């Protein structure tokens, strides 16, 4: 089996896993085992593909040809490989976490949950391995639709409303802007393939390129660039594993990944720099970074705060893409990885706190460090990574983004990055600091508060420890991802 077929396999495995989960719905233990095994197999397959890609191969596979000249095609290039590695490795961890969480939280319809979860991963792999704009769009939309039942999982009115916002923004931006841009690109160039160095050069003027770029950036609603960010906080009604994997990793990263990929392979970074068409979009991203951080300050609900933090952090990647130089692309690509591991840890912790201590508001979390020391320590590590402090992986991406901004001569953007880091210290660091150093706020609150250590269920705890260790490991050993991103970012 060659690497192209393996890429197809990476799409099929989660779908098969979804089927297995459906068949085993009567036996929860077997069902969860099926999920884990599927995750393991998927990770194995992704690793195999990685070996081929790291050796410089670019596997391709045409699946079908819906329209003449517009095939449904898989192509694994280094950037997609990064995304697939992140999503694939975190899926198995999240499944582990979800088992503890869903049982501990007594969620209903768990089978449906696991089925759509697996389908969402299948679509994520599709996004990662999309070989042209059309394929990317197909899996992008499929990802929106497959995550809709997860967002509305609770079935309550709040969930329904959130689902409406979620679907409304993601579908309408993608149809109205993204599809428009794709068809326009096709009209200009006669192709929708991804090509190194871009396909637009020499075929579109400065004005058209600027409009197209804006259509792509805003049309990819999953990147949550303001003002199309509202769906992300809304999606937080979903069970925490969904928020963790999908709305910190798979879905949102699908968005920024698409922007990065389109910048590199459709516009071409040299062409963009030459035209300077992306400068104003840098500032849109910068504004999103700062504004979302400020909003995050005002949110007392932990998941909501994390959501706004995610919006802010996503725009780092968008910023990296819009800088359109080597350091910017490296920074953006690295940030996809670093933020994924950092944010998933934070969400895992938020869910763990919800399951074990039944707390969702940050102001209630004083002194929590005494009952949930592991969770709170993990939260601290995750926070370090998000802020970009050693010894956590997030340091690298911020470093390269800063270099990229300097290369582009945008000193103002460096200042934005600094301010944003300070802000994230303010709104994130406060959580573990209070948990460890403040006295418990309501000792006669929920009974567990002073009853010694009371952590989340073991599977969840294991997952938390794994991801937080990964955050630290990525500081010491970011090489695999760094090598991959260097392959596309040019000299």
């Amino acid at each position, binding site marked *: 089996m060659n690497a192209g077929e393996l890429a197809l396999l990476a799409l099929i495995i989660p779908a098969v896993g979804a089927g297995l989960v459906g068949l085993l719905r009567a036996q929860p233990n077997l069902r969860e085992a099926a999920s884990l095994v599927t995750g393991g197999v998927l990770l194995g397959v992704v690793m195999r593909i990685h070996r081929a890609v790291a050796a410089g191969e670019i596997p391709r596979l045409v699946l079908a040809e*819906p329209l003449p000249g517009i095939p449904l095609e898989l192509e694994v290039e280094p950037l997609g490989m990064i995304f697939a590695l992140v999503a694939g490795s975190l899926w198995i961890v999240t499944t582990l976490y979800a088992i503890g969480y869903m049982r501990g939280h007594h969620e209903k319809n768990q089978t449906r949950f696991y089925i759509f979860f697996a389908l969402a991963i299948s679509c994520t792999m599709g996004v990662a391995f999309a070989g042209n704009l059309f394929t990317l769009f197909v899996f992008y939309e499929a990802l929106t639709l497959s995550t809709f039942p997860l967002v509305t999982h609770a079935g309550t009115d709040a969930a329904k409303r959130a689902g409406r916002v979620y679907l409304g923004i993601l579908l309408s931006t993608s149809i*109205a802007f993204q599809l428009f841009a794709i068809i326009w690109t096709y009209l200009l160039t006669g192709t929708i393939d991804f090509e190194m160095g871009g396909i637009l050069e020499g075929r579109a003027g400065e004005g058209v390129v600027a409009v197209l770029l804006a259509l792509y950036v805003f049309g990819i609603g999953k990147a949550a660039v303001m003002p199309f960010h509202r769906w992300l906080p809304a999606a937080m009604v979903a069970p925490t594993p969904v928020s963790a994997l999908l709305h910190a990793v798979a879905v949102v990263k699908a968005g920024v990944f698409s922007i990065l990929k389109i910048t590199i392979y459709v516009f071409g970074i040299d062409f963009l720099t030459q035209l300077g068409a992306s400068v104003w979009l840098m500032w849109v991203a910068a504004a999103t970074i700062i504004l979302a951080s400020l909003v995050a300050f005002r949110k007392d609900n932990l998941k909501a705060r994390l959501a706004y933090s995610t919006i802010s952090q996503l725009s780092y990647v968008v910023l990296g893409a819009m800088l359109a130089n080597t350091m910017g692309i490296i920074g953006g690509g690295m940030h996809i990885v670093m933020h994924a591991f950092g944010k998933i840890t934070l969400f895992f912790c938020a869910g763990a706190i919800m399951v074990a201590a039944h707390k969702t508001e940050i102001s209630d979390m004083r002194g929590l460090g005494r009952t949930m020391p592991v969770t709170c320590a993990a939260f601290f590590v995750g926070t370090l990574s998000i802020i970009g402090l050693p010894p956590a992986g997030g340091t690298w991406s911020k470093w390269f983004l800063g270099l990229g901004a300097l290369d582009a001569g945008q000193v103002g953007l460096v200042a934005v990055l600094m301010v944003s880091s300070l802000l994230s210290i303010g709104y994130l660091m406060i959580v573990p600091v209070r948990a460890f150093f403040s006295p418990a706020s309501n000792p006669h609150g929920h009974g567990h508060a002073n009853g010694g250590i009371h952590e989340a269920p073991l599977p969840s705890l294991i997952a938390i420890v794994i991801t937080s260790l990964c955050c630290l490991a990525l500081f010491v050993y970011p090489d695999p991802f760094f090598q991959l991103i260097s392959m596309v970012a040019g000299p």
Partner: protein
Amino acid sequence: MSAHLPAIQIVVPLLAAALCVLVPWKRVSWGIAFAGSVTAFFAAIGLLSRVLDGEEIRYALGGWAAPWGIEYRIDAVNALVLLIVAGIGVVVTPFALKSVERELDGRRIPLFYGAWMLCLCGLLGIAITGDAFNIFVFLEISSLSAYALIAMGSDRRALVSAFRYLIMGSVGASFIVIGIGLLYVETGTLNLADLAERLPALHGERTVLVAFAFLTVGTSLKLALFPLHLWLPNAYTFAPSAVTAFLAATATKVAVYVLLRFFFTVFGTAYSFEQLRLGVWLLPLALVAIFTMSLVAIFQGNVKRMLAYSSVAQIGYIILGVSFASVTGLTAATLHLFNHALMKGALFLALGCVMYRVGSVHIDALRGLGRRMPWTMAAFTAGGLSLIGVPLTVGFVSKWFLVLGALEQGMWPVAALVLVTSTMAVVYIWRVVEAIYFGEPSPRAESATEAPLSLLVPTWALIVANLYFGIDATLTTSVAGQAARTLLGGAP
């Protein structure tokens, strides 16, 4: 045998109609209707495959050569329309078996199938014929039987809707006859091909202009082009489920075909679109239709009526493609004829399943049905996604070409509007989907079970077609492309 396919295409449903009425047993008359529709389907496939080989079929009916006799002339355009009509017929007729038994009085069922076959015959006839007056005759055959079919709806409002449709339809048909008459006065022929030959010399004549106007307005009434669509929503809402599915998927499509035939083949692109600048008129009408009707659809409580308004909007998309008068635009229009038939047919059939089990298609009646009728509701959702234009469904293919066509003309605001209005489809479809999956079931829905197989299989057949032609649109796009080039007079 195969030389007489064009005759078989029409004569078999016509004879079946007579037979259906003569037999007193309802199942037998259904059997005859089914046999008739299957024959028509295979005849249509046979004709299409011959046309795709590059042949233009000419058939003198009864051996009377044109221009004295009536000639059937089949190229890529009408072969496609024949396939749409016959294909929908062969899918919906099995569905009708149980659905009609539930919604109609048993005594009337043989009469129902009589009208059903007549309607099929009329619609096929419009598409196949190469004679202008013959178009009118078949148009009236299909329309009169359609009025009867609609009036058989179980709600008493069906009668009023059918009456209104009759009045407006007859006026439209009369307009068409006047137009044809004026053309005859001017050219002395009724054969479409001869008309096309003789008209270019007469392009300055006022008579030709008047004929053009009468034909355009009359046909626009039939195809429910905004603002002549008023008959459509109620007629579709109160007709029996099978009739709605059949008519929604075919009747307006055939009328669009007539319009295309006259605009492009008979009068010629040079006259319609360069001299009269028809595009300037059609474009705003189409855009207003798309926009207002999608908006109205959002506020409908009755899901059947919602889809009916959506149909008017979708006709707007087709006319939009026509208004570009370019190969891509016409490809989009003819593609959407086919694709819209698939998606609306599927959606109305899914509603027919609901009608069969729950007895109502109000949005409140659909609440919570996601658990009771999972297959039906999955079909509705899939059809809805296709209507929205999600990739890998046929709706996406249509939209792709339509936007491409608009951008080719440099009309990027139009292209943007097409995409923005598809998000309106998201709103009205998702309202229903939400009710289906999250609503609290009504008492009647609570006891509902999955629809019987004879209803589900046709519904899913159309859904599968929606997906298949969305994933592999090579066939449909090549036929539509050939049709577009034929219409514009280039090499096929």
